């Protein structure tokens, strides 16, 4: 058995690779057939036959037939015979000879509707037990004739009901009538459907069904009358309606609603006032039918115990309800109706009714004030503003919304201006600030900033706005410290995630939030946002919080590093990748929630795929000559400068996406030297350089001896305007290099720079591209340089060697130096 399983696994892999290629169907089919013929265990063979199944053709019938007695392969064989046009004959032969599992054959016979199988199945039935017996009955129900009737009637009524489909209408109806009171609800329903569907249309049949107490049965009868003329049936139902029990009337009304049977309107109207389900169904149906008087009736129902149903009906009502609402609003029956009318007027945006509603709001009616949000127009704005200024606590918020709605069609500037004009005379200015804030415009923010100098509530409103310009306000408030720091940081996270300029500024913002916040919830939200930025630096930042004191923060950090690791297209340094993900995995293991297992699996998969980068080593020649390794892939301990933007990533120095204008310097100064390194470009147009004999924090091209260009000069962006002295390897501004052709992006090049006295040699990929004595070229500094600029550092005797970043996309590795001394 073990061997079989091993084979199966192996075959899965074979088949996997088979399907991994984009083979044509016929090539796949040939390959599968070949594998099947070689295969000597049925587990594997059944799997291969399953794969062959969709591609099978009539020519494969013999192949499938040869496995029809293998229990594992038989399902595929029978399925293929069922699906193939030429399979019927073979199936019938199997039936005649009992040549395969009978339940499988039954399934096939039913699917193919092989009526000639009936006598055989009936014969099988005599001795069959259990599943086989069930299978035979079910199949006979589908393909059988009257010959099966007796047997099915005694064995399985559900199959007998199916069998009636094969009878003449008269026979079927006669048989079904005997089952109208069967114990099984499904049989009763099927029976009444058969009677109604297969008799000549006769509304009486439906009406009689409705007189029973069997609700599934009644509704099956109504569903069966789908072929009836709607009007004719509706009239018959209408006539019988009053005599039916309440829930049968509800059935009728539901039928009326589905069929939009307008002629049944009187019946519907007669039940609107009924209690319970019937009344609610009538209201619902009336809403769907519409028609004369419908709106008025529904509006009247807003006063009673079925107000919710009436409201729902009016919300979906397609006709004009405004007039009815207006009329009722003048003299509402009771408080319930008034409230519902107001809600409806607002929901359906009945702006014509706004003046009337405003009048009610002015007299302190809360629902009226609430309703104005949704129906008020500019014409009411001033009046609402006056109400708002004087409003008591309860009405302030609804009236704020009402005012905002009244002016919402104006431009943001006009809105801010309008609101601003209310302020000087307002007694309660704080009633207006949130309205300004809700406008979320810069114009409104400016008004609020002005106000915030005097009013704390204006500042609160300002900080609640959702626009980019508020970020600054909120952040500086958070920086001030105090009890609201966390609150403001929380808002800042929210704003930053929506409006942050770019990934770098967002990341720096989240970093600041994480360092300032004390509330774990704020940190959690910042880490959540960070997790959505699949970048190397957000990975490192989130990783710092895997050890946070708060559990929620630790898990948010774990989620963030896992998400970033799975999506990040930037390379992440292996050591950081590994240590952060391992920490995250151990967190998930301790918690053990439903998805944590997946998280651990996912991390395991990612770690399995990641590999540590190899370290660079000096060659034998370099060792012999006394070279020193400056960067072997592990760390930047022999360097100083901008280590924020020059980071170690998998054995390389990576110049990162944000910032990237800083420089990285050797720890020591050098005079004469041989300097070797490898570089590659990750994107088009990378621009950097090697500073030679340079002081710190100056432009090496002028204040150092020189800058030797590192430039992807092949990029189309430089075409046409790049100067000769700017190409890769040039002594910038002074000596052009021989123009080389760069390797494709991502491929490594070697470079050697030899500086000896005033002489500089640059060799890239074994080819010397610069070989010049700068003293000679500039005639000791007397001759103007090619770029016409002063180069005061040109004759520096010593200085640092640097990488001069002018943006991202450069990778450097294997940096070595031979100090040639004086």
């Amino acid at each position: 058995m073990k061997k079989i399983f091993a084979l199966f696994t192996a075959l899965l892999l074979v088949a996997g690779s088979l399907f991994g290629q984009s083979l044509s169907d016929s090539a796949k089919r040939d390959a599968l057939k070949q594998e099947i013929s070689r295969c000597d265990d049925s587990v594997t063979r059944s799997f291969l036959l399953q794969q062959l199944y969709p591609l099978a053709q009539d020519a494969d019938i013999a192949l499938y037939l040869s496995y029809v007695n293998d229990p594992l392969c038989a399902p595929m064989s029978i399925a293929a015979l069922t699906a193939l046009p030429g399979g019927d004959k073979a199936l019938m032969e199997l039936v005649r000879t009992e040549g395969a599992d009978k339940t499988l054959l039954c399934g096939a016979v039913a699917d193919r509707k092989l009526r000639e199988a009936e006598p055989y199945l009936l014969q099988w039935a005599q001795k069959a037990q259990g599943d086989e017996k069930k299978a035979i009955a079910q199949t006979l129900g589908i393909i059988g004739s009257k010959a099966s009737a007796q047997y099915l009637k005694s064995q399985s009524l559900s199959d007998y009901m199916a069998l009636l489909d094969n009878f003449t209408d008269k026979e079927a109806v006669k048989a079904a009538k005997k089952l109208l009171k069967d114990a099984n609800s499904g049989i009763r329903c099927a029976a009444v459907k058969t009677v109604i569907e297969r008799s000549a249309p006769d509304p009486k049949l439906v009406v009689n069904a409705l007189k029973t107490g069997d609700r599934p049965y009644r509704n099956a009868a109504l569903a069966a009358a789908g072929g009836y003329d709607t009007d004719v049936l509706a009239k018959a139902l209408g006539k019988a309606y009053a005599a039916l029990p309440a829930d049968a009337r509800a059935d009728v009304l539901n039928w009326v609603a589905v069929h939009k049977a307008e002629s049944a309107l009187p019946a519907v109207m007669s039940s609107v006032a009924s209690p319970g389900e019937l009344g609610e169904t009538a209201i619902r149906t009336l809403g769907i039918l519409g028609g004369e008087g419908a709106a008025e009736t529904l509006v009247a129902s807003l006063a009673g115990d079925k107000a919710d149903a009436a409201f729902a009906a009016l919300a979906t009502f397609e006709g004009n309800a405004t007039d009815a609402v207006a009329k009722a609003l003048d003299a509402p029956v009771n408080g319930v109706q008034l409230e519902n009318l107001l809600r409806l007027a607002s929901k359906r945006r009945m702006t014509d009714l706004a003046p009337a509603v405003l009048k009610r709001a002015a007299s302190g009616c809360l629902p009226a004030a609430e309703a104005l949000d949704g129906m008020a127009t500019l014409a009411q704005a001033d009046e609402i503003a006056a109400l708002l200024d004087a409003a008591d606590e309860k009405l302030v918020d609804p009236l704020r919304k009402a005012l905002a709605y009244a002016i919402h069609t104006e431009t943001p500037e006009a809105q801010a201006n309008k609101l601003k004009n209310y302020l000087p005379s307002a007694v309660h200015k704080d009633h207006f600030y949130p309205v300004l804030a809700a406008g979320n415009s810069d114009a409104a923010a400016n008004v609020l900033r002005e106000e915030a100098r005097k009013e704390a509530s204006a500042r609160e409103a300002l900080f609640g706005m959702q626009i980019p310009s508020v970020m600054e306000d909120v952040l500086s408030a958070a920086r001030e410290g105090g009890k609201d720091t966390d609150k403001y940081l929380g808002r800042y996270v929210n704003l930053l995630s929506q409006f942050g300029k770019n990934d770098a500024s967002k990341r720096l913002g989240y970093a600041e939030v994480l360092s300032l916040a004390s509330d774990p919830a704020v940190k959690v939200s910042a880490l959540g946002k960070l997790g959505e930025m699949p970048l190397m630096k957000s990975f490192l930042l989130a990783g710092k919080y895997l050890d946070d004191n708060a559990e929620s923060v630790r898990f948010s950090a774990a989620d963030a590093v896992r998400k970033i690791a799975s999506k990040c297209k930037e390379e992440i340094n292996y050591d950081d990748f590994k240590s952060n993900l391992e920490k995250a995995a151990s967190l998930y293991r301790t918690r053990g929630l439903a998805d944590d297992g997946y998280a651990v699996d996912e991390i395991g998969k990612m770690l399995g795929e990641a590999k540590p980068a190899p370290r660079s080593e000096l060659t034998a020649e370099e060792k012999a000559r006394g070279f020193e390794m400056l960067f072997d892939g592990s760390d930047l301990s022999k360097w100083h400068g901008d280590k924020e933007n020059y980071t170690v990533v998998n054995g390389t120095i990576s110049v990162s996406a944000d910032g990237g204008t800083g420089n990285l310097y050797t720890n020591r100064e050098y005079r004469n030297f041989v300097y070797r390194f490898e570089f590659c470009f990750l994107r088009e147009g990378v621009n950097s350089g090697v500073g030679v004999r340079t002081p710190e924090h100056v432009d090496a091209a002028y204040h150092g001896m020189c800058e030797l260009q590192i430039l992807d000069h092949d990029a189309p962006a430089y075409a046409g305007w790049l100067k000769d002295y700017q190409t890769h390897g040039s002594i910038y501004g002074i000596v052009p290099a021989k123009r080389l052709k760069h390797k494709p992006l991502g491929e490594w090049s070697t470079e050697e720079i030899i500086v000896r006295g005033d002489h500089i040699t640059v060799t890239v990929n074994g080819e010397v591209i610069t070989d010049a004595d700068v003293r000679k070229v500039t005639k000791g500094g007397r001759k103007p340089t090619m770029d016409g600029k002063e180069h005061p550092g040109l004759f520096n005797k010593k200085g640092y060697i640097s990488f001069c970043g002018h943006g991202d996309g450069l990778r450097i590795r294997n940096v070595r130096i031979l100090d040639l001394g004086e």
Partner: protein
Amino acid sequence: MADSRRSFLKKAGAGIVAATILPRNVFGAMGGNKKYVAPSDQLTRGIIGVGGIGMSGLHFVSDDKCRLVAVCDVDQNHLNRALEAGKERFGTRLAAYHDFRDLIHDPNVDIVHIATPSHWHGIQAVEAARAGKDIFCEKPMTRTIGEGQKVVEAVAKYGRIFRLDTWFRFKDTFYGLGTTVEPLKKLVSSGLLGWPLTVRISGATGFAWKFYWTGREDLTPQPVPAELDYDLWLGPAPYKPYHPHRVHGTFRGYWDYESGGLGDMGQHYIDPVQYILGKDDTFPVKVEVDAPAQHPDAVGTWRSITYTYDDGCRIILEGEGYESPGKVPYIEGPLGKVYKGFECTIPNVWDVINSLPDPAPRHTDFLECVRNRQHFALDEIIGHHSATVVNIGACALRLGRTLHFDPLTQRFIGDDAANHLINQPMRAPWASMI
């Protein structure tokens, strides 16, 4: 009668209850032409499959409206856990079944809740309908197009009420949209976005595809644990040597049982779109896939699946490693676009939406539907339509090519292999049970 049943339930020992209470479906027959007497407003329910979904807080419930009376599972541990929980939470001794047919035919069960892996849904739903039971079925509705057709037929024939369990077409915030689908339905119906429309179901529009539902290609056979009846767990599915990753929480990653994240989330995401676009009675005519070739056993990932309807409307599923560049709209027509969070290019769009009547009313209370015998808002017909959208996508993925579909015959056009996938091999005896 209603009262006596209820009070009896309270007093009686649970073991006796299971054998004594008369289920609702028996009473109708006694009614005849006499006045109908309601036995009780209380319905009863049995759950097939008490794994993750069946035991979830959403479904493992029992209350006055609908009492949980029976559970079924092929894993004895699951079954024991459910019985314990039943005792603890509801003070009930639930009837416990190993074979789902015994639960379906338990006369105490009114509603059969199908919470098994989807390769079982079709067979179990048809069996329940034949037994005269109403059905609450978890998504996705069925694993093949053919099984879905059989469910539709059986439910109609035996006059049953069916609910497919996804719900965004009628309630809850619809993922990236940030609102329910109702306002979008109104906006689309108003014609303001123009026609035809393109819908993008993508990480970029706030709809994540769960690609952790992928299968493993390196399974080595393991011994079947004693508590699991693996043969019955497989049921109609072809025999494959057991591995724990094939069953329970991770079965979705294998074509034999489901179709990965597409199967899991597809109907959740696509069903509401069929509603929004007014496509509940039709199907796409074309499906295109951009995906790596799929392993024959383990479901893999895909970059995109694009469905096109005969009127030019499209649904684009954007999966792994594929997202349209820049900001993409969730729905887009010639006259307007709606982005994630319902950001819309039409000025003051909410004024327009709010001024329109709400969409036509639907029945969204399943128990109410069982009582008044009305079609649920997501019934077997609608469910079959959206499940089929998922399933034709799965067929195209497995075959790795564009497929054309005929909405009238529900068959693929000019592709025998695809048509062979409409019905798939089933083991004995299940091939004959649907």
